């Protein structure tokens, strides 16, 4: 029973703990997610990297998950916040299933719910530091949208987060069309992911594709893309620069 024991307690009462409870900056982050609508549903692609600042620390992070029967989600940004979002969503789906009444939350509803969560957190200055892609099919209706940490949300035929917006979307604007087959869709996504692999320093060469159709969700096993580095410009790169090595 020392006086010293009560000192930390007094400290807690005197000092505000508010800052230690708010998100200030992200720690372990995922990079781009790319999503497209195709003939039978939605395809999402994301690599399996979890960066710790500039270190490519974790290489088997699953950033694509299914949500209920009708939706899939891909997340970039803080991985622990994504795990928190998954807890919210799993609870949402659980309560939805507990009604047991033939009604179920579709991708549009989940997307809107997420938007409310993200925006409300932002308003409290305690954001979930993520950019999310939400896609799904329900009753033949395809839905593909995105929400980010400040609550900005929109839907489109193809969406991406982070670097994907700058590198992948221009490709998709040129080459996406209605009624892509599954193979065409995957090829298109791989083209986007390859560019991201070359140009995004937080990308790792191990990616996953997820698909959702009216029949259900499939998150495919991870694989790597073939890359080519033998460009002439990369041989003897310092030949023109004096003093360089």
């Amino acid at each position, binding site marked *: 029973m020392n006086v010293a024991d009560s000192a930390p307690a007094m400290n807690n009462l005197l000092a505000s703990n508010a800052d230690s409870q708010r998100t200030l900056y992200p720690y372990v982050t995922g990079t781009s997610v790319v999503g497209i609508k195709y003939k039978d549903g939605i395809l999402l692609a994301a690599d399996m990297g979890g960066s710790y600042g500039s270190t490519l620390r974790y290489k088997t992070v699953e950033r694509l998950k299914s949500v209920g029967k009708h939706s899939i989600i891909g997340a970039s940004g803080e991985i622990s916040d994504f795990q928190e979002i998954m807890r919210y969503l799993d609870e949402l789906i659980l309560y939805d299933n507990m009604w047991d009444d033939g*009604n179920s939350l*579709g991708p*549009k509803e989940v997307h809107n719910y997420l938007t409310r969560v993200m925006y409300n957190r932002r308003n409290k200055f305690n954001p979930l530091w993520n950019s999310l892609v939400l896609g799904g099919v329900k009753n033949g209706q395809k839905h593909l949208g995105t929400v980010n940490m400040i609550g900005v949300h929109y839907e489109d035929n193809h969406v991406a987060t982070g670097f994907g917006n700058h590198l992948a979307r221009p490709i998709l604007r040129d080459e996406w069309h209605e009624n892509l087959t599954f193979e065409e869709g995957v090829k298109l996504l791989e083209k986007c992911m390859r560019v991201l692999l070359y140009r995004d320093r937080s990308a790792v060469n191990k990616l996953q594709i997820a698909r959702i159709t009216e029949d259900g969700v499939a998150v495919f096993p991870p694989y790597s893309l073939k890359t080519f580095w033998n460009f002439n410009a990369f041989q003897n790169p310092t030949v023109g620069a004096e003093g360089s090595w």
Partner: protein
Amino acid sequence: MFRNQYDTDVTTWSPAGRLFQVEYAMEAVKQGSAAIGLRSKTHVVLACVNKASSELSSHQKKIFKVDDHIGVAIAGLTADGRVLSRYLRNECINYSYTYESSLPVGRLVVQLADKAQVCTQRSWKRPYGVGLLVGGLDESGAHLYYNCPSGNYFEYQAFAIGSRSQAAKTYLERKFEGFMDAREDLIKDALFALRETLQGEKLTSSICTIAIVGVGEAFHILDQETVQALIDEFEIVGEEPPADEAATPDQSSDAEPGPADQGTPSDQGATPMDI
């Protein structure tokens, strides 16, 4: 029902296993003026008798729009009904805001029922003295539910509550198997069922209210002219025999519009408040 020593508190059981306060609340529903609901695969029609307490007063509102896809008709303590309608509207709008989609009727009805149940298990509360016919549309089709003061709810193809509702129920029991998707036929059946509860009194648009919701049609209350036109159309065709007693009461109800007629010729049986 007679007074007894177990009916003071809603939280007191009788030895026979009854909660008398809840049953008395259901009596209040039976004493209210009639409300009827019927549904087809694509539409739900709600109809109610709206009798003004005197010539000088307005009618009580007994049908409420809860959302574009849901409406309710009430019978019993209309004040309780109004309060519950506000709760229902709130639930619908909160769901729409969060999920950008319509609250399924079945879920709204369960929430309402659970709210009513609370009042049957708190000593400082009393049950809501109103029965609600909740009609609405969702993904799984058109639905009609009846919510009881007891906290029970049932789904119906067609139902009637309030005074002389048995007459309407008898009519509906005969006709419900034929409820087709044609919304005009559904409204016609609602009007006929409503007429049954009037027990011979002439059916005019000034004493009834009709509302409808359907696929591609938001919940709305039909205006008086439309209703009167429908009544005229159906009564002229004269398909249903029960209209026989309407012959003599006609003279007494015709006398009413006379003094009230301030020069608006087309208003059949309109009360002063309507002009």
